[in-house]
């Protein structure tokens, strides 16, 4: 194939590809357009069906209304006169038949569910349809109209049924039925499509199956194709009912789009069937195919035209280009051959040079003037331990850096300064860390023109030579030193150990002169054992010499002997012998050095003794000890208990690393090394060999042995101790929970008589996990509200430990049991009984007691009875005046409890009034100032503080709510005492930095403000929306908005749910019944909603957050009310809800909104 053909073929290929893309795009656009039309038809079908159903509904409701407006019909039906009814209704029946061919039946039903008259079958009546016709049953139950599709004996019908009244009395129902086919036929008429109806099999009854013979069964669906049976029989096998999107089916007769449309809903709005629509798209398919055919032909014509143009117009130009190209290629080939020849020559030269360069014994490298290594030889690469490619083309100082780098001594710099030959000793540190010495010879690297291109460096390794020279120098120095300074005995002897020389120091060692020593036999010099040992050694040295076995490393041998002093004392010595042999290997002379090692032996014995002692301690001590090098974590030594703690054998431990068991922080090691002091770390976590963690107390110390520093790590197992402490902690929390269970949470409000309510605010802040202060407020609301009572008990138990809590639990259990005792006791009798029971129990030691204030308030008379059992007096705030009770000397001051058994307790009495406020507290409040201010507050001090707070609030008298008074009092005293006291709030733990628990209970009698009551009678939800809007404006845009504005969202949400609940479930949407809404805002914002319904069981509300209730469409209203308020109380058997919101802000995160569930109703059981 020539170039011309190739070029044309390439251009044609591009044109062909582009044409294909455009063709594909065109076809896709056509398809998309067609599909959108089909989807549009489907949507129109759906809309049309809904419209047709609506129209049918309206028409037949009107028709029934017309029939029922005919008095003759209603009267005949009321008289149960079937013939008269038939005659009166017949004209209507005939008119309907004529009007609509799909009109099926008209049917009158009795309230009992029995058929009264079928206009289409007048002779069939009296049959019980209660169970067969739920639609009619519903009309009979609700007396209201119903409509929807229903599966009958003869197919699917759209039915409209309405109640019939005679003079306001319900007398039965009348219904009209129309065949579902009506809608199908109307759609077919309007949209030119074919429609079938389908119903799931499981909805069909036996009569339907028996009488409806036009049905096709497919995919558990019963399909009525109406007049298109043969068409749908062919289409249905290809249609998937599971996929409701349009599906294309092609059969012999043509192509169709099938889709489901319309929801045929029964009277409960449940879908029981749908229409299956077949849209003939054969024409569109033919049109589509024609479009594709035309597009392909047009494209082919375009391609052919392009080919002709290319062949005749571009042929000459392409020939010219090909000719030029051939000339150019010939020239390139010529130059390439020349270059190849030159390259081969250069390659040979280079190989030769490389061989020389690489076989050189010295390391060589060539460096360019830019300090880049151009080339290195193999020896150099070996010296550096790097591959050649890692060294070449890299900066010269990157590897093999030396002392001259970056200085004027750099060989390249010197060569560039025109030095011709440089020789210098250099020391280089290799990558392995080893230091080696080299003789570096450097010469210029020049171009053939003489220009300096760099430097050639030759490195000769002279490390060994240097080492030898250094060792020689050191050896000479050492020997000279020994000769001059040694105090050791130096002697020489012949091969038979006869002395030939003895140095003067023999006198110091043995007490003899050198001459005397030389004259002695061996047995006089040494003990018998020593003589044998030295003789054996000399014999051995003689044998070695004869057999040519030289001492491999040291030319000398050492031996420990005992020499005999002149005073007969045995002196331990170390003798170092150097044998001198003649040329034949015969031992001729012995040079000996004898050293007194008495001190060393003593030290060794002492050390051994210490070591034994230490080993015994280490073996028996119940603390793990391991020793490591200060610079390495490898374990050098460990005691058996360490191995036991780590859970592995001692052998394994000694092979391991301390990091296998714990990671010491570097700072601890540095601190221990620097300070030389022991470092202790509490609560350190150690990992055993089994991977378990163990709590230890770790000590870290250093030890210096023979100039080396070791790290001694000891660890004491404290896991048992921890477990005990944790157990204790658990017990405290459990005790706290039990306490809450017994005493319940304090309700914010309690209804009193005569439009009053009692408000209670309790603050209890323990200084430990749980304290000795405990309290309860129990409201007893009776059927007869006038007999109701409230009991308040605040106790201060000595101590803070678990036992103290247990005693508190026991006390309050007894106290509550006495309160709930059916036998009603007076306050005095109850306290006496409690005291006697406690004294009789064995839970209280002599020094275990508590102070308490016990109070009883009559809900009707407002008489307050109180007993103080050694407790600080409580405060009464009335019209701005503050009094303390009981007064000093009052009989209401009694002994603490349990102090003495059978002691009488006397109560005081107070008549309370509307607006009175009380503050009860424990001594922790008064003693808070002791720690930092050095004194305790008196009751008078406290009264003054409270008075100042009331006056500073700008509200003279008692108008500052008690909840704010107790909070401000606590804040004032804790601030002046320099303590932090924060009560537990919405899941945030309490803080108390003082020395004792602090408790305050504030009580106030609030009159109910009835002026803030609204009522309305809603007719529909619009009335509720309007009421809500008015309420919001009234409450939150005025003065109240300043104090309670932050509650607006929560209050409005809760109000909406409460009002809707009252309207829907309470009043059953009865337009005659009213809803009452009342609000007040003193201590809390209180909202009350009352309805006029039958009430309900408010204690049995389902939880909408349970899995089985989550998708339920109702049942969330009261959950939202509980969730977004602080307290909910029901009254009047569920017709009256009282909801309170605390005034202070709370954090609106989800966690804190999860309030405690109500406690177990222990005392109501």
């Amino acid at each position, binding site marked *: 194939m020539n170039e011309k053909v190739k070029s044309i073929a390439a251009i044609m290929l591009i044109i062909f590809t582009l044409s294909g893309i455009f063709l594909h795009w065109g076809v896709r656009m056509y398809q998309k357009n067609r599909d959108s039309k089909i989807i549009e038809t489907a949507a129109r079908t759906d809309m049309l069906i809904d419209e047709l159903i609506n129209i049918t509904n309206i028409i037949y409701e009107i028709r029934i209304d017309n029939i029922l407006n005919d008095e003759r019909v209603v009267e005949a039906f009321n008289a149960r006169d079937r013939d008269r009814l038939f005659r009166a209704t017949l004209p209507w029946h005939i008119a309907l038949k004529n009007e609509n061919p799909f009109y099926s039946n008209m049917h009158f039903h009795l309230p009992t569910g029995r058929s009264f008259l079928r206009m289409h079958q007048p002779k069939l009546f009296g049959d019980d349809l209660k169970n067969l016709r739920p639609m009619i049953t519903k009309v009979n139950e609700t007396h209201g109209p119903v409509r929807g599709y229903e599966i009958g004996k003869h197919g699917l019908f759209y039915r409209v049924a309405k109640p019939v009244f005679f003079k306001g009395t319900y007398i039965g129902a009348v219904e009209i039925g129309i065949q579902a086919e009506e809608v199908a036929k109307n759609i077919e008429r309007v949209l030119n499509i074919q429609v079938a109806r389908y119903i799931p099999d499981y909805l069909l009854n036996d009569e339907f199956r028996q009488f409806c013979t036009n049905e096709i069964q497919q995919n558990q669906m019963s399909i009525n194709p109406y007049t298109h049976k043969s068409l749908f029989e062919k289409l249905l096998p290809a249609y998937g009912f599971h996929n409701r999107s349009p599906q294309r089916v092609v059969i012999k007769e043509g192509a169709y789009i099938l889709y489901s449309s319309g929801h045929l809903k029964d009277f409960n709005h449940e879908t029981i069937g749908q229409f299956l629509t077949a849209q003939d798209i054969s024409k569109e398919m033919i049109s589509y195919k024609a479009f594709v055919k035309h597009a392909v032909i047009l494209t082919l014509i375009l391609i052919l035209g392009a080919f002709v143009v290319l062949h005749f117009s571009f042929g000459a130009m392409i020939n010219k280009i090909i000719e030029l190209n051939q000339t150019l290629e010939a020239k390139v080939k010529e130059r390439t051959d020349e270059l190849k020849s030159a390259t081969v020559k250069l390659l040979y030269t280079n190989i030769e040079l490389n061989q020389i360069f690489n076989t050189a014994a010295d390391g060589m490298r060539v460096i360019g003037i830019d300090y880049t290594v151009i080339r290195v030889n193999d020896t150099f690469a070996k010296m550096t331990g790097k591959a050649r490619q890692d060294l070449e083309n890299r900066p010269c100082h990157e590897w093999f850096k030396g002392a001259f780098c970056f200085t004027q001594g750099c060989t390249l710099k010197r060569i560039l300064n025109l030095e011709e030959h440089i020789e210098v000793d250099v020391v280089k540190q290799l990558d392995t860390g080893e230091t080696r010495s080299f003789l570096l010879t450097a010469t210029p690297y020049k171009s053939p023109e003489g220009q300096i291109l760099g430097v050639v460096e030759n490195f000769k390794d002279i490390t060994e030579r240097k080492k030898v020279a250094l060792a020689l120098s050191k050896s000479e120095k050492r020997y000279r030193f020994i000769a001059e300074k040694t105090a050791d005995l130096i002697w020489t002897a012949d091969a038979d150990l006869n002395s030939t020389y003895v140095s003067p120091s023999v006198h110091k060692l043995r007490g003899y002169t050198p001459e005397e020593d030389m004259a002695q036999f061996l047995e006089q010099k040494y003990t018998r054992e020593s003589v044998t040992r030295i003789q054996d050694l000399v014999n051995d040295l003689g044998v070695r010499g004869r057999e040519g076995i030289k001492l491999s490393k040291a030319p000398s041998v050492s031996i420990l002997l005992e020499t005999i002093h002149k005073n007969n004392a045995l002196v331990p010595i170390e003798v170092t012998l150097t044998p001198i042999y003649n040329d034949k290997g015969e031992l001729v002379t012995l040079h000996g050095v004898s050293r007194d090692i008495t001190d060393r032996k003593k030290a060794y014995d002492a050390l051994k003794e210490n070591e034994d002692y230490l080993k015994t301690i280490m073996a028996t001590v119940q603390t793990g000890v391991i020793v490591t090098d200060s610079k390495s974590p490898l374990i050098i030594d460990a005691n058996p208990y360490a191995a036991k703690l780590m859970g592995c054998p001692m052998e394994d431990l000694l092979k391991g690393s301390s990091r296998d068991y714990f990671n010491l922080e570097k700072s601890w090691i540095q601190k221990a090394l620097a300070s030389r002091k022991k470092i202790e770390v509490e609560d350190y976590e150690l990992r055993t060999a089994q991977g378990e963690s163990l709590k230890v107390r770790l000590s870290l110390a250093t030890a210096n042995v023979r100039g080396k520093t070791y790290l001694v790590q000891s660890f004491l197992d404290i896991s048992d101790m921890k477990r005990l402490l944790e157990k204790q902690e658990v017990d405290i929390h459990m005790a706290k929970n039990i306490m809450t269970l017994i005493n319940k949470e304090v309700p914010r409000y309690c209804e009193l008589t005569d439009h009053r309510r009692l408000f209670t605010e309790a603050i209890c802040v323990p200084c430990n996990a749980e304290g000795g202060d405990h309290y309860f407020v129990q409201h007893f609301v009776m059927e007869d509200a006038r007999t109701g009572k409230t009991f308040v008990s605040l106790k201060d138990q000595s101590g803070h430990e678990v036992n103290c809590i247990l005693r508190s639990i026991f006390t309050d259990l007894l106290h509550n049991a006495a309160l709930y005792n059916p036998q009603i006791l007076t306050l005095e009798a109850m306290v006496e009984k409690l005291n006697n029971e406690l004294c009789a129990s064995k839970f209280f030691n002599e020094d275990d007691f508590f102070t308490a204030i016990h109070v009883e308030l009559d809900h009707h008379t407002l008489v307050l009875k109180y007993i103080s059992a050694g407790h600080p007096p409580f405060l009464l705030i009335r019209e701005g005046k503050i009094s303390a009770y009981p007064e000093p000397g009052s009989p209401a001051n009694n002994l603490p409890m349990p102090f003495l058994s059978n002691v009488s307790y006397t109560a005081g009495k107070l008549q309370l009034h509307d607006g009175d406020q009380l503050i009860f507290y424990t001594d922790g409040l008064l003693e808070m100032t002791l720690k930092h201010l050095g004194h305790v507050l008196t009751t008078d001090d406290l009264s003054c503080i409270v008075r100042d707070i009331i006056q500073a609030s700008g509200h003279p008298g008692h108008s500052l709510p008690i909840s704010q008074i107790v909070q401000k009092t606590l804040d004032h005293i804790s601030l002046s005492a320099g303590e932090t006291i924060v009560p537990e709030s919405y899941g945030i733990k309490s803080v108390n930095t003082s020395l004792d628990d602090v408790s305050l209970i504030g009580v106030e009698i609030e009159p109910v403000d009835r002026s803030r009551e609204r009522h309305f009678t809603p007719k529909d939800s619009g009335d509720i*929306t309007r009421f809500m809007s008015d309420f919001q404006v009234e409450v939150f845009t005025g003065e109240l908005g300043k104090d309670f504005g932050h509650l607006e969202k929560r209050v409005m949400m809760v109000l909406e749910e409460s009002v809707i609940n009252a309207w829907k479930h309470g009043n059953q949407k009865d337009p005659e019944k009213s809803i009452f809404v009342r609000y007040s805002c003193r201590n809390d914002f209180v909202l009350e909603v009352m309805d006029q319904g039958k009430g309900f069981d408010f204690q049995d509300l389902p939880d909408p*957050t349970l899995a089985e209730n989550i998708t339920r*469409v109702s049942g969330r209203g009261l959950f939202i009310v509980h969730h977004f308020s602080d307290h909910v109380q029901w009254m009047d058997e569920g017709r009256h809800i009282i909801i309170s919101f605390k005034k202070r802000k709370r954090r609106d995160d989800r966690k804190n909104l999860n309030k405690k569930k109500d406690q177990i109703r222990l005392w109501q059981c």
Partner: protein
Amino acid sequence: MEISVEKKENSIRFTIVGEVDEQGATVLKERFRSLYTASLTKVTFDFKNVTHIGSAGIGKLLLFYKDVAMNNGTIGIEHIAPGIYELFLTLKLETVFLLSKS
């Protein structure tokens, strides 16, 4: 309360403005009823401008959810204000709807 609806093939997007109180819930229910739900596989509610929703409104969303879920469809609620988002979480509605905060 106002609702605008954008439908695209098998998905639908509701943009709601205002408070979904009892009255709003009724409007919502009527709007849902007028829709052909069988083909819907993705339903999205834009709550960017919803300042409040009560239990009635939530009930209607769940009613709609039942229809859509029958066809394996999903309902997502987007741009939910923090207070309403907390309410939905409290009622554990994240197990039913795909929720995303504003």
